[in-house]
């Protein structure tokens, strides 16, 4: 059961996070903060028109939040802003909807992100997996200047 949460691909991204570090050409950014655990992430974007041409992240967090941020950067590089929003909705559904015990319909759009389906069984960890995504959305909606987005209202 614990292996559902810590799949190899998640452990790999935790060990070697992709697109980790400052993004020199960034023109949007936002920070995410989980006050419950103190995890922090900063997501930086280069947006060209309606297209995200580069994504980077920095910060410290658990394996779930680090791997989620890392895989998000890969997934969204080259995506349009609309595609990113739609991907967030799909990802969020994956983490929160339905009975975790049932096989979910394959969502081809999600691709590798489906490894996070196991997080559903651990409600306390859903916010770890969505932290970077919330920061990304804040950066896209130009809320990045308003201070960090928080997982707790």
């Amino acid at each position, binding site marked *: 059961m*614990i*292996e559902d949460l810590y799949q190899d691909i998640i452990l790999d991204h935790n060990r070697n996070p992709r697109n980790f570090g400052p993004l020199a050409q960034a023109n949007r950014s936002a920070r995410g903060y989980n006050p*419950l*655990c*103190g*995890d922090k992430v900063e997501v930086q974007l280069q947006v060209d028109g309606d297209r995200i041409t580069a994504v980077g992240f920095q910060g410290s967090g*658990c*394996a779930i939040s680090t791997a989620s941020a890392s895989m998000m950067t890969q997934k969204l590089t080259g995506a349009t802003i609309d595609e990113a929003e739609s991907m967030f909705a799909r990802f969020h559904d994956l983490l929160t909807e339905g009975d975790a015990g049932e096989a979910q319909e394959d969502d081809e759009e999600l691709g590798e992100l489906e490894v996070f389906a196991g997080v559903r069984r651990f409600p*306390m960890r859903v916010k*770890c997996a969505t932290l970077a995504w919330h920061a990304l959305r804040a950066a896209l909606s130009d809320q990045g200047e308003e201070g960090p987005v928080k997982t707790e209202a």
Partner: protein
Amino acid sequence: MNPKTTDRKTTPLRFDLDRIRGDFPILSREVHGRRLAYLDNAASTQKPRAVVEALENFYFSEYSNVHRGVHYLSQRATEAFENARARVGRFVNAERAEEIVFTRGATEAINLVARSFAAPHLGPDDEILITTMEHHSNIVPWQLACEAAGARLRVAPISDDGDLEIDRLESMIGDKTRLVSVVHVSNSLGTVNPIAEIARRAHSRGVPVLVDGAQAAPHLPIDVQSLGCDFYAFSGHKVYGPTGIGVLWGRHELLEQMPPWQGGGDMIESVSFEKTTYREPPFRFEAGTPNISGAVGLSAALDYIDELNIESVRAHEAELIDDTLLRLEQTEGVHLIGRPARRCGVISFNMEGIHPHDIGSIVDLEGVAIRTGHHCTQPLMDRLGVTATARASFGIYNGRDDVDALLNALDKVRSIFGKGG
């Protein structure tokens, strides 16, 4: 009041772990199909049958509101509530029961002192002195009070091992210092602070001392007279009692000088629209219907602890902690956070390259309950250069099997994170 003795006549018992565990029904339940190893006692302790039965008896046979009715049940309930106050007084060795103010918990007790004792006298440039290892509940009330008055909150440093630098603390006490507020036992590191020494040095400069005893009360004998402090705060739910009840002990002459901090029923002498006069302490500080059953439950919890022969419990806990420290030190990749000279109750650690939340989730599935995170001590985490720790904290019902379960679960953590590494 009598010196600190137990209420009932008991013959000293040897430490009997099975018997104690039998008193805590929750310990026999399984978690994720495993025997529960509950090592999160610094967050809250489980409740013995005696406490729950006391609540049931009170609600089923004696319950009414206190301090007002002339009817039979009101008198019984008032008696039970005031007996609980006297019981708590004996637990901390107060000079008199009137020095015990019931609150919702240690947090509310500290807020009461901040609002009612500190704030009225706090002027611009005055100072409140705390330490780096304080829980947020002994930081934020002072920040609020200082902000309102334009006063300054100063913070005494700690060593890398997590010990208070008491000489530095003393050197920070000056003409402007209005209060020293310090934790007795650190909830994150287990550091036991030398309260009597701190009180002696603060008093030599005429400065009163508040002690946050939330983590000390379950582990150490509390004697406010020999500690020499001026206020002592602790929570019921960390000493095997109910939630929502806590205690502020304060020197009577100080309580007498303090104005009320909340207004309402039960705390007044007489009310008219022109002028209201307030009752004497402790009632002045207990506006509204108090947590009557909480006080009764707390009293039962203190009876339970005292009947156990607390010395044998403490010896057992200390031995278990020493044993766990040794085993954690020998575990590859585990780093202890803090090495205080005197420790009780708590061990914080990290694992190389593994975030504490991941440790927490994995050991949970092995039936081991520990706390992971900043433990409401973010400034302390910053000082130690970590964002979070894993924390195992011990209670009267923990045994070697709980430590075995923890160590085995940590092996599992390593094996999961070691894959392909």
